[in-house]
């Protein structure tokens, strides 16, 4: 296998597996920047995957090829609403945010599979008839070398995710909304005295994070797994969380981290088929992303401050 071919496979594998992580990690950035810990990403992703598949299955005949794409939007809305539960618990009811997140994860797993059994009378769905496919991007894929490596065998969602990362960056660092979001996550009382509604901001952030995670899950389901069961999302949500922290709570950082994870994963999987990796036990490659994350946290991210008010429920007039 030529080196170019090999590179192309790894790159496309990277983008392919990284995409759901990117969406979800971006979601995480929103909620954690506003000071709300989001362990719930896993559950929100699962919920999104569920909505994505069910929508595509039920509407496939009517919408055809558009179905999976529409399902992403539906998933975004549904998961956004589902996330509000996390909001109510951790913002209004002052629950421990990590704990509430754990609860969301339980709930998502329970509800979705319960619903699947109710709707389809079985524990996992059929395969969707229309998927989000890997494509060769017109024109771009014809560019010599670059085209083969970066614009072939990749679903459009990957590019959307990457572009979105920059949009989010702009939102958070250049707009009033972003300034307020960060203020609420750093020093909510200060924001409050400046007339910013802390609760509202946090609700919005959590809702957005739900939408992104939902899309992440739906993308995973409609482009990778192709059907839904309780085991469809196993850990991708936590991996996205890691990516977000690895990326220092910064959209572009999260993007980079997610891509790195995707890279390590696809290396781990394809390792056996790659000549110079044959010798390496695949377990080494498999645990690589996790070990690197830890090392990264120690090395460069160690000092990267989390938002100061992260995990602290805000109470008016309490210090």
């Amino acid at each position, binding site marked *: 296998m030529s080196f170019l071919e090999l590179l192309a496979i790894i790159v496309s594998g990277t983008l392919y597996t990284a995409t759901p992580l990117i969406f979800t990690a971006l979601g995480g950035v929103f909620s954690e920047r506003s000071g709300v810990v989001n*362990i719930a990403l896993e559950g929100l992703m699962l919920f999104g995957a569920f909505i994505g598949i069910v929508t595509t299955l039920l509407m496939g005949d009517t919408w055809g090829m558009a179905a999976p794409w529409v399902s992403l939007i539906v998933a975004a809305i549904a998961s956004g609403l589902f996330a509000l*539960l996390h909001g*109510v*618990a951790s913002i209004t*009811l*002052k*629950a*421990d945010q*990590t*704990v*509430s997140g*754990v*609860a*969301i*994860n*339980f*709930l998502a*797993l*329970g*509800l979705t*599979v*319960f619903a699947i*059994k*109710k709707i389809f009378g079985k524990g996992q769905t059929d395969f969707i008839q229309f998927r989000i496919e890997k494509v060769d991007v017109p024109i771009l894929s014809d560019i010599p070398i670059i085209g083969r490596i970066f614009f072939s065998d990749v679903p459009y969602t990957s590019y959307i995710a990457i572009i979105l990362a920059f949009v989010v960056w702009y939102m958070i660092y250049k707009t009033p909304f972003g300034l307020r979001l960060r203020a609420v996550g750093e020093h909510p009382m200060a924001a409050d005295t400046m007339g910013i509604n802390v609760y509202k901001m946090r609700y919005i952030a959590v809702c957005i994070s739900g939408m992104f995670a939902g899309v992440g899950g739906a993308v995973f389901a409609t482009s990778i797994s192709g059907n839904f069961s*309780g*085991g469809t999302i*196993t*850990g991708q949500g*936590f991996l996205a*969380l*890691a990516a977000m*922290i690895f990326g220092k709570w910064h959209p572009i950082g999260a993007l980079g981290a997610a891509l790195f994870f995707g890279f390590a994963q696809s290396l781990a999987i394809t390792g056996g088929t790659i000549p110079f990796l044959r010798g390496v*036990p695949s*377990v080494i490659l*498999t*645990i690589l992303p*996790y*070990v690197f*994350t*830890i090392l990264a*946290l*120690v090395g460069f*991210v*160690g*000092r990267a401050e*989390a938002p100061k008010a992260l995990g602290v*429920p805000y109470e008016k007039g309490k210090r």
Partner: protein
Amino acid sequence: MPKITLSPRMIGVLVPIVSAVFGLLVGAIVMMVSGYDPIAGYGALWEGMVGTPRAFGETLRTMIPLVLAGLSVAFAFRTGLFNIGVEGQLLVGWFASVWAGYALHLPSVLHIPLSILGAAIAGGIWGVIPGFLKGKFKVNEVIVTIMLNYVALYLTYDFIKRFLDAGNEKSYDIQETASLASTMLSNITGGSRLHWGIVVALIMAVLMWFLIDRTALGYELKAVGFNTHASQYAGMKVSRNIVLSMSIAGAFAGIGGAMEGLGTFQNMTAMSSFTGIGFDGIAVALLGGNNAFGILLAALLFGGLKSAAPQMNFTANVPSELINVIIAFIIFFVASSYVLRWLLSRLSKEGK
């Protein structure tokens, strides 16, 4: 209005109870909405929890690892740490216990304690890593433990295949001398898989209570957990304490793994996804108010729910996933007890 006076202690007891009840109510509503008969459902559930001696035995057996997972989470929590890494610590503990149980040849009196110790050490080491990183580099332990869960998952899988492969995704069985299984316990519970681990679990619960609430070490660990600066000013070694409490938490979880390895299964399966006990542990610790006795009760409840789920499915055709929904809502209610506590404390205030 009537004089109600509730001590914070009382409230602390009421909150979980009320939450559990609410959780079950939600479960009932979900059943009704989706066209199942709650009475039948809960009837079956109850049947599956305590209906027969065997059922009760299974409830107790399921409870064992939950107790240890809960203790692990709670211990860390009480010392200002969040141990979301129980899952990984439990897996390495499980593996270590099985390895020791298989490789060593000793009389039971030595073999069992040694295998459990092995598990404790393995889990402890898995806890030391995040502890050390937090103590030395201020790295967020939540994220490190999550990462280590996956490392543990894949490493144990690989190690089983590499060193203990008995085919069929299983490791070799442990020696008889290392087994916690008990025909006696099994017989009195109508042939359930209840094993001596239940005793271990009880001992560990007492140990945790004693460590945290009665010893100077516990005092120091709590102080560091609440306020590292003040502890440092008072001459305590902060990072040493963080490492210590994470490793103790890890040891509890590791022993939880040993309970599965030496008790329930007598071996370890090469798993490609988590057991879920770790996260159940968070729920248990929370419902148990991070206190040893509460954890025993919480574990009993969740153990019952989990082991009875198939029964509910069997006789009432209610999908067992309902249990996760119920547990989720119980967690919500406890975690959101802010409001509940506030209400209750208002009530008691009115009384005065």
